């Protein structure tokens, strides 16, 4: 009887192995595809290139036993190009995960399509709406405005003593979203901005905006601008002799942005960010930064690191046995992951990052120092 049951179980096991197990083993040997769809050209080229670099660094060094292939495609800065790139990736590469653009407007167009295909999008986009639309495939590895803007506003008010800040923000989704959050947090702190000035990404001359800020009696500047405009605003504020402190958005932490400004003009200027690989002296971070420099002949930034961490979490999902896009999605949603920058865990809507830091420049070098940490700002972790 016992033998019969054992034999039956063995037969059943063999049948299951033949029906499911054997093909599964064969599939496990096949490399899995990951698509990298990021803006490499256009006004987000700096951020997008950092994303690409971070993703590629992770995908080139998968954990033991994990084999992946990847394709990189430029999404430029229009939703049309991004959607076309996404459709091409879904149709031709069948990816289990996609490194997706930092540009929120593109993400808003891509998310419903990826949702229908059930393929997770791994992004560093800060646009708040992205994780509020009910899609369960968006995973954001850079803190949202609800985290980093809290750090920016609190540091400006509580540490620098700003009482009459002026906000210069970009006319893009990034700028408008950050501005809304800044105003909200400032309001909670009992401070009302004396000026809120929208700046088109193409504007090179910030003097009129700075004049208006001075005329409004601003005692400090809060910037929510992309890389190039941030550098221009900081430089022109210095040249014009604007005396109040400046706390910029995460764009200023990027070494490529700081490289556009003389160290003297950066004296006392601070910025929010999720991390700063060039400032962190830990061994692991230093190794990452050095490998990045060797590979791309550029300094790593927080966007590169966040995308690196995000793709490493995808690889961890694959190492844990996820073989399909859906399985990767479920693993990302249900697990914690200790990345280089921070520990990541979903808040239930795909927001994985919950820490922020404030970096400041000393006026002598272009390497900022971490001045303050704001951990678990949204209380998720």
């Amino acid at each position: 009887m016992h033998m019969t049951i054992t034999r039956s179980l063995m037969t059943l096991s063999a049948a299951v192995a033949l029906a499911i197990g054997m093909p599964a083993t064969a599939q496990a040997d096949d490399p899995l595809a990951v698509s990298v769809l990021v803006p490499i050209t256009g006004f987000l080229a700096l951020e997008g290139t950092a994303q690409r670099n971070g993703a590629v660094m992770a995908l080139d060094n998968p954990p033991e036993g994990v084999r992946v292939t990847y394709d990189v495609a430029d999404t430029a800065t229009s939703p049309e190009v991004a959607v076309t790139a996404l459709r091409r990736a879904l149709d031709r590469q069948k990816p289990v995960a996609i490194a997706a653009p930092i540009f929120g407007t593109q993400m808003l167009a891509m998310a419903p399509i990826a949702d229908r295909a059930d393929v997770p999008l791994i992004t560093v986009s800060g646009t708040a709406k992205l994780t509020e639309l009910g899609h369960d495939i968006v995973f954001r590895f850079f803190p949202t405005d609800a985290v980093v803007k809290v750090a920016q506003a609190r540091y400006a008010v509580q540490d620098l003593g700003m009482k009459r800040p002026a906000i210069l923000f970009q006319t893009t989704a990034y700028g408008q979203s950050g501005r809304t959050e800044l105003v909200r947090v400032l309001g909670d702190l009992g401070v009302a901005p004396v000026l809120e000035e929208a700046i088109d990404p193409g504007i090179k001359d910030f003097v009129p905006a700075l004049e208006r800020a001075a005329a409004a009696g601003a005692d400090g500047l809060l910037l929510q601008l992309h890389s190039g405009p941030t550098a221009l605003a900081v430089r022109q504020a210095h040249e014009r002799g604007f005396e109040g402190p400046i706390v910029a958005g995460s764009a200023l932490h990027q070494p490529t942005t700081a490289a556009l400004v003389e160290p003297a003009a950066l004296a006392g200027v601070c910025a929010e960010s999720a991390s700063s690989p060039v400032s962190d002296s830990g061994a692991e971070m230093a190794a990452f930064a050095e490998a990045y420099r060797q590979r791309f002949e550029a300094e790593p930034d927080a966007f590169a690191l966040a995308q690196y961490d995000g793709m490493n979490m995808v690889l961890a999902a694959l190492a844990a046995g996820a073989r399909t896009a859906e399985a990767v999605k479920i693993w990302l949603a249900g697990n914690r992951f200790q990345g280089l920058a921070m520990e990541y865990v979903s808040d239930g809507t795909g927001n994985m990052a919950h820490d922020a830091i404030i970096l400041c420049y000393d006026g002598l070098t272009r390497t900022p120092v971490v001045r303050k940490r704001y951990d678990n700002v949204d209380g998720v972790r």
Partner: protein
Amino acid sequence: MRLAVHRRGLAYVMLFLTAGAVLLGAGDAYAMRVATLVGTYAIAAIGFQLVFGRLGLLALSQGALFAIGAYALALSSVHWGWPPVLGLVLSVVVPALAGALVAVPIARLESHYVALATLGLAQLVLLAVTNLEVTGGANGLYGIPPLTVFGFDLSDSWRMLAVVWVAVAMALCVFAWATGAGRAGRLATLRDAPHAALALGLDPISNRLLAFTVAGALAGLAGGFQALGLGVVSPAVARFDVMITLLAIAVVGGRGSVWGAVTAAAILVPLPEVFRGLEQAYLLAYGVMLLAAVVALPTGIDGLVRRVLPDAPAPTPTPAAPKSRKISVLRVERVAKRFGGVQALDGAGFDARAGEVTGIIGANGSGKTTLLNIVTGLETADAGVVRLDAIPLLNHSPRARAGLGLARGFQHPEIPGGIDVLATVSVAATLGAGMAALERVGLAGRARVPATSLGPAERRRLDIARALAAGPTILLLDEPASGLGAGERADLAVLLCALAKSGMAVVVVEHGMDFLLPIADRLVCLDAGRVLAAGPTDAVCRDPAVIAAYLGTESAS
């Protein structure tokens, strides 16, 4: 026969049908998405060809109208809950109205002023959609539902492809309607021969209104499809990139050619996709390809196709005499005109009687051409009276004067490109009347050749034929014999005499006395804007003042 006439169009149709069949057969969803995008841009480019190609106006508002269409659909479906198919209707109507509104303020602007004014509109649209709450700000509007008709989902790759390309076919039909019934000739004349167009009584405003409205409707429809294809509309759709793409499609396709535009869209829209793998270098590669296309194909893709596969000439119509009117005299009295510090005319006048050739002579700058311009309404007079029999003309528009029988030939004939000789002369008349006018000037055998292929002498005859086609009662010609050989001058003299004999009043401004004196019944000699002498030709030629001021002793003898 008709198939032979349209064989170029048939070749394009076969090409696109074959490409469509291959695409559907392959079943590649990504390729279908790109082909849908090609169709979307082709629709907007077909509309742009009407304004840019046919009217010659660099209207940089087409991209903005595309965006208005996209936002109209998004607003109606996302905010108001309209079904997308109704939103698609709105995406046609709103930009069409916007296009008409654009046409009104720029109705009298030309060249770079049109570009500047429409660029301003495009910037306004971009600013509005970026900053208005109702348009979703920089994030735009998302969550546009897929296109369904009676519950039937049309958003699938091949269904959407079919819907968009059916719309391309409809856009081609709309374009054919907008340029049909002789309108192609009128648009070409307004574009390349604006003075002749005015003198012929063509109405630039109504033609611009029509072109901008149709262009707006097509741009809006394309924008609607764009919104449906993406499921989201953002300010990116209002950025200048869209306008540049449409401009590139129009130029590479060939100015004014819709088939060229559709073909260029099929090449240029997928090109960034092809080069995208080059990452940062792709913009360079795209730019080089675009430049190479413009340099290698100066007349565009359709220009090349025309050379390789020319359409057979259309049949020529039977000549039909235009309606003739009867008048007795054109009377011009005490006309004055000042340009800044120069008194061009100072009380000048003349009578031109039916059945006579009236010559106007005088030194350069004496006011002869200005006088003709005032009579035909191309210039306004500071003072004076112009009457056609009892009808005062100075308060009439050039169009009304043309309707009363005034026709004008020019010192430098303006010849429109892209149309044949018969279409050129028939812009203000029937084809039959145009054919009759060509027979009259000896150009009937050249009726179906491109007007721009004519030599200088033939162009002068064409200019006269264009004036004659509408059946004028008064024909005013400005130096019609200049540049003609002896034989051609003799032929022209015979023609003018015959026209006068038929009851027309012929007024000829001319420097060539050997040509004018034998045919002129009466002469008017101008000097510094005043009439030095007027009367029968012999009497004026003997007038000592005329001899001293203009003719000289040799001519007088």
